[in-house]
């Protein structure tokens, strides 16, 4: 039990490091000509990284048998939500100056924002329903609901892909990771279906 607590603290502290780093750079004015954009890009990238980490937990538990990781999946997911909220807040405050009519226009005009915003809404819904009490209340519906994380990640990738200007590199790397993580789920559910059939047919 004590080990779990220490691991929790360690993961939480490590997860806050990117936030501390960007805050430090902002306060000491080391973010260059366009600090707003730098912060928005940075927090957006870390949202994706935490989504990757969260969705890597199940494969690592199943394939590498790192069962201890499962205990920490929720915290990683909540940090994905944390960075997504930072990303959205930085965009609203630093880029749009809290001009919500402009936000409405951007939501319609910029397809990548049209894709990104629902991803944040999904993460909020998943964060709110991540507690033990909510798990009990939702019962069997909890897991299908939390599979929306796959949709959030896919939308996140589309959000990056639609901003490509000069290089496919980032989108290609993120796409490959997303493909592996979602592909594994697809493969497992296909195998489950196969097994179910072979069990039912004598």
């Amino acid at each position: 039990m004590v080990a779990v607590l220490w691991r929790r603290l360690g993961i939480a502290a490590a997860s806050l490091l990117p936030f501390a780093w960007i805050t430090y750079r902002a306060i000491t004015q080391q973010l260059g000509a366009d600090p707003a954009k730098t912060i928005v890009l940075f927090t957006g990238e870390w949202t994706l990284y935490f989504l990757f980490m969260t969705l890597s937990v199940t494969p690592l538990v199943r394939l590498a048998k790192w069962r201890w990781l499962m205990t920490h999946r929720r915290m990683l997911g909540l940090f994905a939500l944390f960075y997504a909220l930072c990303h959205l807040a930085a965009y609203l405050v630093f880029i749009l100056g809290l001009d919500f009519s402009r936000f409405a226009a951007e939501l319609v005009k910029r397809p990548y924002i049209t894709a990104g915003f629902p991803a944040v809404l999904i993460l909020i819904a998943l964060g709110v329903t991540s507690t033990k009490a909510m798990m009990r209340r939702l019962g069997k519906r909890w897991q299908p609901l939390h599979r929306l994380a796959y949709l959030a990640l896919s939308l996140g990738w589309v959000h990056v892909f639609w901003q490509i200007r000069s290089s496919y590199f980032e989108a290609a790397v993120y796409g490959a990771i997303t493909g592996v993580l979602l592909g594994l789920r697809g493969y497992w559910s296909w195998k489950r279906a196969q097994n179910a059939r072979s069990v039912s047919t004598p």
Partner: protein
Amino acid sequence: MLIKQTESVSENDVTPEAVYRDRRRFMRMALAGGALAAAPLAGAKPSFVADAPVQTGPAWLSQRIEEAQAQQTPVEDKLTPYEHVTSYNNFYEFGYDKSDPAKHASALKPHPWKVEIAGHAEKTGRFNLEDLLGKVTLTERVYRLRCVEAWSMVIPWVGFELGELLKQFQPSSKAKYVAFETLYAPEQMRAQGSAFSTIDWPYREGLRMDEAMNPLTLLAVGLYGKVLPNQNGAPLRLVVPWKYGFKSIKSIVKIEFTEKEPPTSWNISAPNEYGFYANVNPKVSHPRWSQASERRLPSGLFSPNIIDTQMFNGYGEQVAHLYKGMDLRKYY
């Protein structure tokens, strides 16, 4: 009913350029102390603020740039600090992040430099930069630069009118367009070797002949009264202030007079997003974002500095006549 208040005007916005420049000169004098105080500061020398590492060039070029008379178009905008102009820009030959050019452009060797003049003209051939500059008058011009990504800067360039140079090669009546090409040298420009690039190197740009001959169109060799840094397109780059920044091709090695509209890099890469003309136009959106406003850099965190984008980037008086009768929605 709510009455929308007009934006308050800060002191910087109303400081006339001349006063602003004088203050800079005063600050430089105060900062530099003895060494620089001896230099003649009273003349119309280009402004400079030493807030970032400065690249040096050959003495003949530095001298020419320093001698350039400040003959700028009046601009009421505040200059973007040297540090930001030289550390935040797109120069995809060096990488796709805006900090990459400043990091990796030191591999470029801008001196000595040759430019090939080709196509429909009486005189063609390969010329040393030094010889080309021998035929023109250098001046300082403060221009707004509007990036197609909806951010903008205000930059004091040192250069010469492109038309002044082009005339000397005596283009023929077949010369309807001018095509430009950037250096192709993957050993100097690291991202030219990338397999993930959306651009087919070398970078190419072009102008219609009348656009090229417009007195606003500049070939720059300097910035803030100093030699043009590598990351900003040394030693020779185009500046077309009424068009989106990507038209202003950097590190030019070839200028060709053509009869047909030349292919241009971004247009080849994404024809529905980037046109040949690429005039700054708040009414024609990029397919992925609006062009109605821009963020003037440097932008503060709690003052995003969003301003309305002006037609032709505010240079309509000088260039609107070039596009009379043209549908600018079709020719974006």
